[in-house]
């Protein structure tokens, strides 16, 4: 156990040493981006406490309050800062809850894809042979298809398999599954590449000679070395995952209106567009774009900082 924490520590130290902090402080855009990301995550986490209304409590909804514009526009109501939608739901509150679901789905699917991809990548590199060929062949096929299409298909199939009465509860897991299965390839490729290199280094051979099991070797010795690239992939993929979720929800095959994510909110808002009710669609869009943009900026910075050569 002790040796493992030491390994991780040394990995962590190298991580910090790689000019990371320096380039962070040098890049104001990155600082702003990370502030935005963490504010949004925090706001989303605290949604039940900071949201002015509970958008899901039907008893508080009143059609009298429907389609109210934002507070600063004529006809607006100060209690509904960003206006209300067709059912009198507070847009701000719905957005906070929506961001919560978007971020939850994003993070979970990234975690899922990462675990899946890293395991498959390690397996492919370490076992080699037919296992390697099969895994990488599947990866090739997956990556040659646009992610949205793959996610749509997996999502569709999963919904088809599930009995209708379970569909409503399971929809969030179906989404996570679909997005995760769509995006694991990059992790697997990255890990496989690095592992192929690390595998033949002396310290891994030495670990083998003293009789450590392959699983132990992989976990303790190889994994810490590929953590940097994986982190970059994960950050970029978080943006992609959030986008895919939003797209699926927008297309009507993601989160249902009773439990809306940002994408669902935009879908709902889209229906009001022609009556000039712009606020229902604009505000969730802004939050979504801000979130994805900030995550992308972080990813860009992380990639540059970890690979000075690319600059």
């Amino acid at each position, binding site marked *: 156990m002790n040796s493992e924490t030491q390994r991780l520590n040394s990995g962590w130290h190298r991580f910090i040493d790689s000019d990371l902090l320096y380039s962070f402080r040098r890049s104001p855009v990155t600082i702003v981006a990370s502030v935005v990301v963490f504010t949004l995550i925090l706001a989303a986490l605290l949604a039940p406490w900071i949201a002015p209304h509970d958008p899901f409590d039907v008893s508080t909804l009143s059609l009298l309050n429907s389609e109210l514009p934002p507070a600063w526009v004529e006809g607006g109501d100060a209690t509904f800062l960003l206006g209300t939608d067709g059912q009198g739901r507070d847009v701000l509150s719905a957005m906070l809850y929506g961001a919560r679901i978007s971020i939850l789905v994003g993070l979970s699917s990234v975690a899922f894809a990462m675990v899946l991809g890293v395991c498959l990548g390690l397996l492919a590199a370490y076992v080699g042979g037919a296992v390697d060929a099969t895994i990488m062949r599947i990866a090739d096929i997956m990556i040659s298809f646009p992610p949205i299409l793959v996610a749509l298909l997996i999502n569709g199939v999963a919904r088809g398999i599930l009995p209708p009465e379970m569909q409503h509860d399971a929809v969030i897991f179906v989404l996570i599954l679909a997005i995760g299965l769509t995006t694991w390839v990059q992790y697997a490729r990255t890990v496989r590449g690095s592992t192929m290199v690390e595998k033949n280094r002396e310290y891994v051979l030495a670990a083998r000679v003293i009789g450590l099991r392959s699983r132990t070797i992989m976990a303790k010795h190889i994994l810490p070395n590929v953590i940097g690239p994986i982190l970059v992939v994960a950050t970029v993929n978080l943006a992609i995952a959030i986008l895919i979720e939003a797209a699926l929800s927008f297309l009507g095959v993601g989160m249902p209106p009773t439990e809306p994510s940002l994408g669902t909110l935009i879908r709902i808002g889209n229906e009001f567009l022609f009556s000039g009710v712009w606020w229902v669609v*604009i505000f969730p869009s802004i939050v979504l774009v801000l979130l994805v943009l900030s995550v992308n900026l972080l990813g860009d910075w992380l990639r540059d900082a970890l690979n000075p050569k690319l600059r």
Partner: protein
Amino acid sequence: MLAVAFIAFSMFSFVGDPVTNMLPQDATLEQRTALQERLGLNESLPVQFGKFVTNAVQGNFGISYRNQRLVSDLIAERFPATMELVFAAVVMSLVIGIPMGVYTALKRDSWLSHLLQALSLTGISVPTFVTGILLILVFSVWLNWLPSFGRGEVVELGWWSTGLLTVSGIKAMIMPVITLSLFQITLIMRLVRAEMLEVLKTDYIRFARARGLTNRVVNFSHALRNTLMPVITITGLQIGALIAFAIITETVFQWPGMGLLFMQAVSFVDIPVMSAYLVMVSLIFVVINTIVDMLYFVVDPRLRVDTGQNKAGA
């Protein structure tokens, strides 16, 4: 292709029972069996798969569960709309993306480059449907300049229907094309920039500069041409991605293309249409890959090994 066929077929067998979706709640058992027989669902799985493949090769994907029409007819009807949209978007992303990429690579430190770089990251971060909705809001709802849905008037040229020959058709195309190409423009720009920076570091560019060639010749005749090699490949791949993105764009603008057809099929679990769409998309992939390979052959003399027919330099 076979993999796709297999996936398409697996959907057939795994995804629920379409019969339930198609018949009214109070359908009799006889009605059910009749329909099952008509759709060929009463046979064993391998037989179904075999039939599926033979039929698919002949362009026969069966009958749509939803509106009881031949799937191949449906696809043929929608195919031109999607293709016009996608190719207009490709042309636009190349025409705008390449110059922007070249500019940002050559003038790395100018303020305009920084601005374009920032915009490109924004472009990648804005989802297609948000772009579309914003465009509709501004140009259709507020300004009332452009139509927000459909293709406008189309002209039939044999089996191909085109929107490019009428004013309303072109007006209807503007916003969908911008929506679809925005992401691609930023992608092409970033790709061209990265490739060009890479090429500018190579020995032959340094040597070209050392020979005193003008910047214009070095940058455009030497660096750009070498830069465009990988851009060809990526553009090819991106056409495939565009067809997929078109699903979203077509939904936003109610564009009567294959993507919209596919989405309608998804919500009705209309498997024959879904699998036909898949097979169609992968067919387009294969065709594009072949074209890309051929283009490479034209552009890169190294692939034309000693044919002796090379163009004179002078």
